[in-house]
């Protein structure tokens, strides 16, 4: 059962990697990152469930990862807003130059 769930986790992680690397839109890139963190949460919980004897520190790690997920989303949205104010840019291709 652990192996099966880890394969699902690997599939979600792979889709996230594809999205984060292939998308031009900033928010779509963030969606790829979110999928990767989603897969990480699933893998941590299945390890907690199947290999730690129910040690609550396994669940605690998920709480930390959820905080990281919230931080990633908040800073991502803030940066999207800042870039749009400065450049009117909504895709990565408009940010090829750092100058100006």
């Amino acid at each position, binding site marked *: *059962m*652990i*192996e*099966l*769930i*880890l*394969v*699902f986790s*690997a*599939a*979600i*992680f*792979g*889709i*996230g*990697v594809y*999205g984060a*690397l*292939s998308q*031009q*839109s900033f928010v779509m890139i963030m*969606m790829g990152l*979110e*999928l990767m963190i*989603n897969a990480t*949460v699933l893998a941590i*919980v299945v390890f*907690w*469930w*199947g*290999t730690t*004897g*129910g040690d*609550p*520190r396994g*669940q*605690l790690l*998920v*709480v930390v990862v*959820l*905080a990281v997920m*919230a*931080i990633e989303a908040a*800073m991502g*949205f*803030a*940066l999207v807003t*800042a870039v*749009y*104010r*400065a*450049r*009117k*840019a*909504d*895709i990565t*291709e408009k940010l090829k*130059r750092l*100058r*100006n």
Partner: protein
Amino acid sequence: MSVLGVTAIVVFGVASVVTGWLVFRTDSMVRAAYWLMASFVGVGAMLVTLDSQFLGLILILMMAGEMTIMAIFMVMYMMNPAGLNPMVMVHQHRTAIAAGVGSFLLLATVALVADFPADPAPAGADPTAELGFELLGRSMLVFESAGVALLAVMIGAVAVAGKWGRFGDADAGSVEPPLDPEEAAS
């Protein structure tokens, strides 16, 4: 795990993967946000099936809020948020596919080949209560640190996204710079 539990894991797992894939296959960015939410709901349901009810429900509630905000951001900033026209906005597509498939194969191989210790959580335990005692007991510093980090991010996000810039009003610079360096210098 019971047959019903295994069936639920398979159904929710397949649903999470399929909806995760649909995030990048739809023309509408708003729909993409809600497909992502569906993927999170599937993973949250898997967490509930794995006796981690609190974390599963927290994940679903948190993502419902975040994806709603994300959909609003799509409408605010991104082109074609409703998906009325066909749209492909990708770059380095083959590299991205290779990286995604490669990372899946690598992780899946490790998952299938590695010998994990079998020490399941005891039946009849209350994982939610144990997590609560852990968070407010010996691991309180971790819990508090996460709270302080979130507070710092809230302040930082407002500072970064605010209308005021370091050199004046941030909106004053919202004109796309010219491509000619000499024109930009003048």
